[in-house]
């Protein structure tokens, strides 16, 4: 196996697991739009790095985590008010366009690609260092999720009861958003700022359709995400004209589509996990 393929598979697997896990909660908490916003922030972050001549990955990471932190501070309002999120990220993206212009003006030789790379990812361009960093960061994300998943599940399903039982709901929500920010920053390197939304929402949406049991659902979401990544890498390797990020998102979308065919009567979708709350989470 070519080394670039090894790095892509390694980083891709780690990122897919993390994306599947947080995606399950994002869908459950109806916070997919937040991810959409964070995805766009990664682009502006990377562009700011290029425009002001520091490491674009650093800019990407810092910007995403900072904005996730901002959403967390806004707290309750950030969850409810899509309009604030929408307005903010529409402008952040405009800022990204500006940084890109600044960058291409000052570096005239063949840098039109830079924008596309960060928008749509370049998983085959991941270096061995980046791959190892991805594994560690995504490992940390998974560990964090393992710690907070039970209380977070409780808080997501029934906030009022969770507060009454002494679960620190706001803190959990804020911590979760930071984790989401970190994951988005990683995923942006694999599938790009614009497409990471698919890697997060499609496997999770499919898992929500297939099972009502939360922990099975979490595992399933991660599994589908990993499968999509591997299949996507393979497709892109066999058919070199297909960009890997398209293949990955395509497979994930197909998986989601199949769940509609599989469960036609559940397609009318009572939010599956919501009826499990009373029985599954009595004692936290």
């Amino acid at each position, binding site marked *: 196996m070519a080394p670039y393929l090894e790095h892509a598979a390694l980083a891709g697997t780690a990122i897919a697991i993390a994306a599947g896990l947080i995606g399950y909660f994002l*869908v*459950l908490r*109806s*916070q*997919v*739009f937040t*991810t*959409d916003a964070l995805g*766009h922030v990664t682009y502006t972050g990377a562009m700011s790095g290029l425009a002001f001549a520091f490491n674009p990955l650093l800019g990407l990471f810092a910007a995403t985590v900072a904005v996730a932190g901002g959403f967390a501070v806004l707290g309750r309002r950030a969850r409810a008010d*899509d*309009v*604030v*999120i*929408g*307005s*903010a990220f*529409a*402008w952040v*993206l*405009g*800022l990204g*366009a*500006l940084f*890109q*212009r600044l960058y291409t*003006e000052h570096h005239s030789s063949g840098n*039109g*690609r830079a*924008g*596309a790379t960060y*928008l*749509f990812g370049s998983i085959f361009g991941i270096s061995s260092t980046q791959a190892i960093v991805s594994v560690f960061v995504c490992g940390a994300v998974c560990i964090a999720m393992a710690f907070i998943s039970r209380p977070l599940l409780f808080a997501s399903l029934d906030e009022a009861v969770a507060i009454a039982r002494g679960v620190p709901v706001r803190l959990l929500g804020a911590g979760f958003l930071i984790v989401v920010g970190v994951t988005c920053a990683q995923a942006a390197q694999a599938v*790009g700022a*614009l*497409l*990471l*939304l*698919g*890697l*997060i*929402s*499609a496997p*999770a*949406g499919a898992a*929500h359709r297939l099972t009502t049991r939360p922990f099975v659902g979490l595992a399933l979401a991660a599994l589908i995400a990993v499968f999509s990544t591997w299949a996507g890498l393979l497709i892109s390797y066999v058919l070199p*004209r*297909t*960009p890997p*990020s*398209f293949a990955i*998102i*395509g497979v*994930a*979308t197909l998986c*989601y589509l199949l769940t509609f065919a599989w469960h036609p009567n559940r*397609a*009318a*979708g*009572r*939010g599956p996990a919501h009826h499990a709350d009373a029985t599954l989470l009595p004692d936290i």
Partner: protein
Amino acid sequence: MTIAAAATSGDVTWSWNLLNDVRDMFSYPFMVNAFRAGTIVAIVGAVVGWYMVLRKQTFAGHTLSVAAFPGAAAATLIGVSATAGYFAFCVAAALVIAIASRPSGSRGFSAESAVVGTVQAFVLASGYLFATLYNGLLSGLNNQLFGFTFGITNDQVVTLGAVGVLVLAVLALIGRRLFFASIDVDVADARGVGVRLLGVAFLLVLGAAAAEASQITGALLVFALLVMPAAVAQRVTARPVAGIGLAVLIGIAATWGGLTMAYYTSYPSGFCITTFAFAAFVAVHRVRAGA
């Protein structure tokens, strides 16, 4: 591109003689067209956006906006007019979202957000695929994503105007019932308003409006013209007619301000327009928070 580059490369200067500045700016036909198209898009975007914000469908609106990108890329690839591609993809995406996210009781939303997110990522991925398959992609890619305000032809303005009138006519027809259905779904349903049909019709209108707007600001920044003027207006007044009127005014002001700024500086027009709109949003947010 060359004319636009000449005009935006900074060899024009702002003189504070407003009349002269405006005359100077309008001496270029591409600038006149940019203002015409921008105004049409600002009006349509603000009206449709007002309903979008009211119905809390910002995520769907954003997804439909980005559907313009694969539309343009596919049209370039198979060699038809970009406008046709924009409309085909945006309307198709609206249909997919309408079909896949059938409202289903109180918990419909979380499933819907996964559908919308997946549709969005998939259309963007397809756009990237088309752009990759079409080898001469690079400058084209940037224009499709971030707008090419200064390259609008007369024909495009006419198309924009026609579709804009159509969208506004449909909204005028369903506007009252849509407002009822958006404010209180259950009561509207009980009163025999076709809530579901209205929802689908609105998504189609939103798709058409997004396809329009993306020709001005580029697929990635359309959302600004949809969401920001409407968000400002809804913070200022709860009255529908006043709110829609205000949204239109803000949309036009942001577009004109942004285009002027883009003409006199070297900044991309998408950035300028979103900056003006966002400034209005932040200002209103501050004032309301302070009051």
